[in-house]
């Protein structure tokens, strides 16, 4: 008699005349939301209807799984087995890895069923138990090619693992070869994972070789994994083509949704070609990868028959989807199911890390925006934290280690922290040692922690210089690990020409956190190289700014309402919001950019549905909780210019503010906008403003609580509200000077300085040097409004800003 399985009503041959044997996958708590909802509602008849529907669609066997965290698997599954045995004509497959539960079901089932599944993950203890049960009750078993080292990826590993299982099951427990269905595992070729480019080839090869080398056994595949990550309509086509190819190699059975498989004849030659190129990883000499060509080709396909269950996947897929979508809700439930099947480290390495990699790739392609990436990172963090108690500590010692620091004299940490978030949630070990870190400390820590890579960050113009000048120190200390540099003031040209030569190992410019991630991947692949200057052209960046060299020397100085300094502490925070540069906040600080693939309408919708509500909620919260405490220290002073210095008179003292002059035409310097003593002298205005440390404290709390998304939101908000305060206070001072005239009609008017005069921030392109803060603080005494200076002349709290204000109509932004 041919190997068969049987229900009370009928026998089904495993080797079908026209393979494969179709095993319906939807009666599964982890594969079908509908099934799960029915089970959770104790609607067992509803569960049964799903099985009957699968039978009607052509299933020849039904996989039945009730594993769900928090429920009694044995109670549920035995109840379902009884129900299915009576009402469904076709045989069932008991999908459980718990020997006791399996035995309870086998005892009840009036026929020959299949057990799904066994493997060698724990070295064979569970396999021994389940094989004994299979022998005792005469069941067949599905065997996954997983061993103590994890899931078999290559055909060689798949065959080796199958052979080991075969030896145990047949040799030790006396099962017949025909009692075993080997599943050589399918991995997705739809997510762009570089390590899985040939995953389909390995699986197909595995099927062929298992059939050849272990005569008499059968093969089975959980098929739909192959296309995971792709849109539903194209998945159906790829699954169908891949199934056809697998059957060609000798596949006997497939666990699928029988309603979602198309006969090959219904798939056009052209569609098949794109599937073949992807399955067999054929580049066809084209620049675009097979995956990109596949996605482009099927981009417009819509599957009208798609039902509401399309969203729900096997737990492996469900976890991947949750990470990619940044959906933390219920992620523990999925993890609990997976933890029954895989060691925790394998869940991290085989599902979570590839999912985050996919997130990075989507960001790189402009398909995912930064705030959503951070939500994914939060889901990742939550998953790893949940798995951690189950992991052995040694796990932590593996992998690439990186040390991150904001360089000496710089208090900015958002950039460094974003790198921390991204890297640590991509499986790297990150040592984030904080801000204002001197080179000596970084060197000592790098040695002590034996890190593989150092990452230096800094926002200020001065930080770029600090990096450049400290690199020889790293060299002299004998360090040999690559150093990554990131920060707003850096360019690849600067790093290539001014930093790379100062250190022997690669120095690499990273334009954002994702570039840092890429650098680490390159490092692991042994391909990390120093940044090189652009090959051709390599022209220095333009230096925009006012071109006007004929500055009117006779422009009269306005009359200020007072001379000297004043402190204002009762500014209404609500007044600042109209001055917030929303474009800079939404796009720049928050990363809600308009991607290449989205239209102006899509973007407007994103603004309306996501960004504006977020912003409104933040404004409301900031006011309700008193997070904004705007204050100003400001003053007007008699002054005169002399060369590159503005002499500021305060009481008996004269302070000399020296400013840099452009080295190339039109050779501007801030002093050019102030009259000399001979010309009658002038008025200089200054301010230091802050929105108070409360919001900075709240921001820090969010980072420490791993609330990455909210951290980015609140940080960006605080930066832009600080700028809004500067804009608002500048306007107040123009009003006091009697030069306010008409207000700019909108934010663009402020951005383009559509008002009289200019405000030059200390540390910004027209006066990059922060040392002037020393005198400015003597002049304005902003300690009284809670602003102090670090030893490197940066203001604390970070949400503070300072400026010198020029009233001259020709004064506008320029860079030295």
């Amino acid at each position: 008699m041919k190997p068969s399985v049987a229900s009370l009503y009928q026998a089904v041959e495993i080797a079908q005349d026209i393979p494969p044997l179709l095993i319906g996958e939807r009666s599964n708590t982890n594969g079908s939301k509908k099934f799960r909802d029915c089970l959770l509602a104790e609607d067992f008849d509803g569960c049964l209807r799903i099985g009957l529907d699968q039978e009607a669609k052509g299933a020849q066997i039904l996989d039945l799984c009730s594993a769900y965290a928090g429920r009694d698997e044995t109670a549920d599954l035995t109840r379902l087995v009884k129900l299915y045995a009576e009402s469904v004509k076709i045989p069932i497959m008991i999908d459980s890895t718990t020997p006791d539960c399996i035995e309870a079901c086998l005892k009840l089932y009036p026929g020959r069923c299949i057990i799904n599944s066994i493997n060698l993950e724990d070295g064979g203890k569970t396999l021994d138990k389940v094989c004994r049960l299979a022998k005792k009750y005469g069941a067949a078993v599905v065997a996954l090619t997983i061993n103590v080292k994890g899931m078999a990826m290559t055909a060689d590993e798949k065959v080796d693992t199958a052979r080991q299982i075969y030896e145990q099951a047949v040799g030790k427990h006396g099962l017949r070869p025909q009692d075993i269905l080997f599943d050589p595992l399918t991995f997705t070729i739809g997510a762009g994972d570089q390590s899985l480019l040939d995953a389909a080839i390995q699986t197909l090869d595995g099927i062929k070789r298992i059939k050849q080398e272990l005569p008499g056994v059968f093969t089975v595949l959980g098929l739909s994994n192959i296309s995971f990550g792709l849109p539903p309509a194209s998945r159906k086509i790829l699954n169908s083509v891949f199934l056809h190819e697998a059957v060609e190699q000798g596949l006997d059975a497939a666990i699928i949704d029988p309603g979602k498989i198309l006969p090959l004849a219904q798939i056009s030659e052209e569609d098949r070609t794109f599937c073949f190129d992807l399955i067999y990883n054929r580049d066809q000499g084209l620049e675009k990868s097979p995956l990109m060509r596949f996605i482009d080709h099927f981009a417009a396909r819509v599957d009208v028959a798609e039902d509401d269950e399309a969203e729900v996947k096997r737990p492996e897929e469900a976890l991947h989807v949750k990470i990619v979508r940044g959906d933390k809700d219920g992620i523990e439930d999925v993890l609990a199911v997976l933890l029954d099947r895989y060691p925790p480290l394998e869940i991290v390495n085989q599902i979570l890390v590839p999912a985050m990699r996919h997130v990075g790739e989507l960001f790189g392609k402009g398909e995912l925006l930064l705030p959503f990436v951070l939500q994914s990172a939060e889901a990742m963090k939550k998953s790893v934290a949940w798995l951690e108690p189950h992991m052995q500590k040694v796990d932590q010692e593996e992998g690439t280690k990186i040390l991150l620091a904001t360089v000496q004299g710089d208090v900015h940490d958002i950039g460094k922290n974003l790198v921390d978030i991204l890297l640590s949630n991509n499986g790297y070990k990150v040592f984030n040692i904080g801000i204002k870190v001197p080179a000596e400390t970084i060197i000592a820590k790098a040695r002590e922690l034996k890190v593989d890579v150092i990452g230096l960050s800094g926002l200020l113009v001065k930080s770029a210089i600090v990096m450049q000048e400290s690199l020889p120190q790293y060299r002299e200390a004998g360090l040999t690990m690559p150093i990554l540099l990131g920060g707003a003031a850096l360019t690849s040209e600067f790093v290539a020409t001014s930093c790379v030569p100062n250190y022997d190992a690669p120095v690499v410019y990273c334009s954002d956190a994702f570039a840092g991630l890429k650098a680490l991947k390159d490092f692991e692949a042994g391909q990390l190289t120093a940044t090189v200057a652009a090959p051709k052209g390599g022209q220095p960046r333009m230096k925009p700014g006012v071109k006007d060299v004929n500055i009117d020397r006779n422009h009269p100085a306005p009359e200020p309402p007072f001379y000297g300094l004043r402190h204002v502490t009762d500014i209404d925070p609500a007044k600042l919001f109209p001055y917030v540069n929303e474009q800079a906040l939404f796009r720049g600080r928050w990363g809600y950019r308009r991607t290449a693939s989205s239209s102006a309408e899509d973007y407007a919708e994103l603004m309306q549905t996501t960004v504006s509500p977020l912003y409104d909620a933040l404004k409301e919260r900031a006011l309700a909780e008193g997070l904004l405490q705007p204050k100003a220290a400001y003053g007007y002073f008699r002054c005169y210019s002399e060369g590159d210095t503005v002499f500021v008179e305060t009481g008996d003292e004269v302070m000399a503010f020296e400013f840099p002059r452009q080295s190339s035409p039109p050779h501007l310097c801030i002093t050019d906008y102030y009259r000399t003593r001979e010309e009658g002298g002038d008025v200089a205005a200054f301010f230091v403003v802050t929105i108070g440390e409360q919001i900075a404290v709240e921001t820090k709390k969010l980072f420490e609580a791993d609330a990455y998304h909210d951290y980015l939101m609140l940080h960006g908000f605080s930066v832009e509200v600080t700028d809004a305060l500067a804009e608002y206070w500048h306007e107040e001072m123009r009003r006091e000077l009697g030069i306010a005239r008409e207000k700019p009609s909108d934010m663009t008017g402020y951005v383009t300085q559509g008002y009289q005069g200019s405000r030059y921030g200390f540390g910004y392109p027209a006066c990059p040097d922060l040392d002037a803060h020393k005198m400015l603080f003597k002049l304005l005494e902003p300690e009284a409004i809670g602003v102090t200076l670090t030893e490197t002349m940066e203001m604390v709290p970070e949400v503070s800003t300072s400026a010198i204000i020029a009233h001259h109509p020709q004064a506008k932004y320029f860079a030295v």
Partner: protein
Amino acid sequence: MRYICANCGYTYDPDQGDPMNDIPPGTAFADLPDNWVCPLCYAGMDTFDPLD
């Protein structure tokens, strides 16, 4: 098509060009030189989003 600087909100309008960088009116964003930067905040071209 106009482009907006994600860092500072400056809008590049081809009809107006960019006098601060000596770019004449009528220059499409795509035709700006590679070393062009935002005239207000000096961010590079990849910081710009299409606006229309």
